[in-house]
């Protein structure tokens, strides 16, 4: 990781503008406390493929200007800093709680040193704030939905403002599931914290644990042995495989293609059973460790044939989907996300690649063994639900091809290198999860304990972009559009 660049509060806006003009992309801002009384803001930005991410460190003594007007995607990150650290941003366009429920109002912010340990937040009646509706109020209807929704779904609250079939506005509250996971890392031993990272987002077990491990490995200059690096790719792609297969089952559910739904879910089940057979865990838990893997895996001799069967079954399935009018009619032109909006609002993963933004951390900032494993990044530019689905369709194929390469070329040798934590060190780790860009930033204190862990999850980014595809569309398309994003709430709320 590049050494953080010190930046004065007054220079932030200029630096943010220059980053935009030179074609970089802001990733996130987070706060931490190098000293109990000192808050430091960290801005992380992508400059160019295969160049290190740049990190700006700003130690403000008073509120700093919000950069949300230059980088709209920063707005949620700033609001999170305000909620958790009590640090305000000047001219924040939406200065209301995001991560904490309105009405929680703790005596001290949860990341403040004065916040009493072991005390749980509480909230009684908490109402969603609404935009003002002018004009023909009489015709406007409100539909509240959640936080307990239908079916087996994650908890989140939605409020539709609509006239007849047309949606005027969608308000969301996505942080009912906020568990304070970042704070839970603090003081946990770095090795045990892998177990925490695996449980931040269940269906992103590998992506999270891998980004965390790589952050710590970067901080402690630990070099992971080749066999472990290849096996990490295998695990990450197995995760992508079952997630994407689930995606198609669910997408067929919303387009009421019943056999397609059953077949998608059956393929997902087969993939999960392969996970169980390879690692002992259907969600691939308990394998990653700092410096490599906890135990060796033996994919050779059987996994390749199983993956081939899945590839063949999926190819037939995908071809049938692409020939089914009732399915295509409901996806094509549904929920369009303009390339510009995707960029500004920070959309990531298959969502931005469906809107024509050619980014993939596996290729642009390679980690594990991706630098040695060629693959083609899936890309579409229509920006609609169909484009998002097609990106995932291509990714299933390339994912299986990547795994076959890993199995063919898997080197022998050790699977773990000891990882010696350096006091007062810090590291940035990342992975391209099935849903997009995932970052972990870790900071160690003078005793080599975890002092701060920041998680930037892809669903946090994509949920922010999502409402832009809902406004001015209709109610019938909503569920299909949401399914086409393939979001998780747990990753977003953490």
């Amino acid at each position, binding site marked *: 990781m590049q050494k953080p660049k010190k930046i004065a509060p007054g220079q932030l806006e200029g630096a943010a503008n220059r980053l935009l003009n030179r074609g970089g992309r802001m990733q996130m801002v987070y706060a931490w406390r190098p000293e109990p009384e000192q808050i430091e803001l960290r801005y992380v930005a992508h400059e160019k493929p295969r160049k290190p991410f740049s990190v700006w460190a700003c130690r403000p003594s008073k509120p700093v200007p919000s950069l949300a007007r230059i980088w709209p995607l920063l707005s949620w990150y700033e609001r999170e800093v305000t909620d958790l650290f009590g640090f305000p941003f000047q001219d924040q366009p939406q200065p209301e709680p995001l991560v904490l429920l309105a009405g929680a109002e703790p005596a001290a912010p949860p990341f403040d040193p004065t916040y009493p340990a072991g005390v749980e937040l509480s*909230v009684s009646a908490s109402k969603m704030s609404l935009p003002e509706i002018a004009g023909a109020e009489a015709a406007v209807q409100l539909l509240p939905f959640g936080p307990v929704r239908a079916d*087996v779904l994650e*908890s989140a609250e939605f409020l539709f403002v609509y006239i007849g079939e047309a949606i005027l506005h969608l308000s969301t509250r996505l942080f009912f599931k*906020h568990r304070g996971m970042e704070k839970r890392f603090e003081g946990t031993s770095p090795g045990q914290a892998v*177990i925490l990272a695996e449980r931040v987002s269940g269906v992103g077990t590998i992506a999270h644990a891998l980004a965390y491990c790589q952050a710590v490995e970067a901080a402690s200059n630990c070099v992971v042995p080749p066999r472990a690096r290849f096996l990490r790719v295998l695990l990450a792609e197995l995760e992508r495989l079952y997630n994407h297969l689930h995606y198609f089952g669910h997408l067929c559910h919303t387009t009421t293609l019943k056999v397609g739904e059953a077949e998608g879910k059956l393929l997902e*089940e087969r993939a999960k059973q392969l996970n169980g057979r390879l690692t002992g865990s259907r969600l691939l838990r308990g394998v990653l460790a700092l410096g490599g893997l906890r135990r060796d895996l033996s994919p050779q001799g059987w996994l390749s044939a199983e993956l081939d069967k899945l590839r063949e079954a999926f190819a037939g399935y995908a071809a049938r989907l692409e020939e089914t009018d009732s399915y295509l009619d409901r996806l094509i032109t549904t929920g369009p996300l303009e390339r510009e909006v995707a960029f500004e609002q920070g959309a990531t993963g298959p969502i931005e690649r469906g809107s024509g933004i050619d980014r993939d951390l596996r290729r642009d900032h390679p980690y594990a063994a991706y630098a040695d494993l060629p693959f083609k990044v899936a890309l579409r530019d229509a920006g609609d639900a169909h484009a998002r689905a097609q990106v995932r369709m291509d990714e299933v194929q390339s994912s299986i091809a990547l795994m076959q390469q890993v199995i063919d070329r898997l080197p022998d040798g050790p699977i773990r290198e000891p990882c010696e934590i350096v006091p007062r060190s810090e590291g940035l780790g990342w992975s391209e999860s099935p849903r997009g860009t995932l970052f972990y930033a870790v900071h160690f204190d003078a005793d080599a304990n975890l002092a701060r862990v920041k998680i930037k999850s892809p669903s946090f980014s994509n949920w922010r972009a999502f409402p832009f595809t809902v406004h001015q569309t209709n109610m019938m398309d909503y569920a299909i559009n949401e399914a086409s994003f393939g979001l998780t709430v747990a990753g977003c709320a953490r």
Partner: protein
Amino acid sequence: MPLWTLFGLLEGRQTTPWPLAKGNNGQSGVIGMPRYHPDLCCEGCEACAEVCPTGAITLRPGAGEGGRFDVDYGRCVVCQLCTEACPTDAMTPSSDWAFGVSNRADLVWRAHPERAKAAQGTAQRPFRRSLHIRHVDSGSCNGCESELQALNNPFYNLHRLGIFFTASPRFADLLLVTGPVTYAMREPLRATYEAMPEPRWVMAIGTCAVSGGVAENGYACGHGLEGVIPVDVYLPGCPPNPAAIIEALLMFLERAPQRVRGGQVVD
């Protein structure tokens, strides 16, 4: 327009005969709760308790029968760190994942657990052949949801067992809760429970719902369902796999025995 139905039929029957008849439960190779062998434990060693991230293994003051440690499977997240740390195989990996119990105390290891007694005419008996479930996510990592959603895939095909998920708590007999219960979900969870007609039951799915799991003791979470709503069935696991969930549901309906007593498989 492809012939979906034809292709579907050509796939043949994909549903496992298990649990109604002998067959593949789909969990080949899946690791469950670590097994505790107190007789293999070394004096002075606390390696397992030190690595446990959720305090499932704690040193017991005063040695007695059952070794030096209290092992609470209701707190276990199946991470296997203890099995790797133990130098003497007193903690070993196993495939014991069917850990549904109706008494919380049965998740704590004890020596000489009694064998299961035959169930006798409890209140849920009328629901044996048709059970409606309302699920509430009280702040899970989505791992439990992933496995709950799998129940309706063609392999497990939960419907054939007469068990259905329902959208409204008004139609539900059983509330199935995942997650450690965040401060923000506590009221919506209670409201859902209150909206259910009596008789009503609650099943805690996953270690988070049983005891709080990895998110416990933070500023946003409590200790699972403890002290929030009464629980009738506890199923720890991280996450419990679909077969474990099916076993727990059938156990609740008295169509299958409870396999675990005193923290070990006795059935």
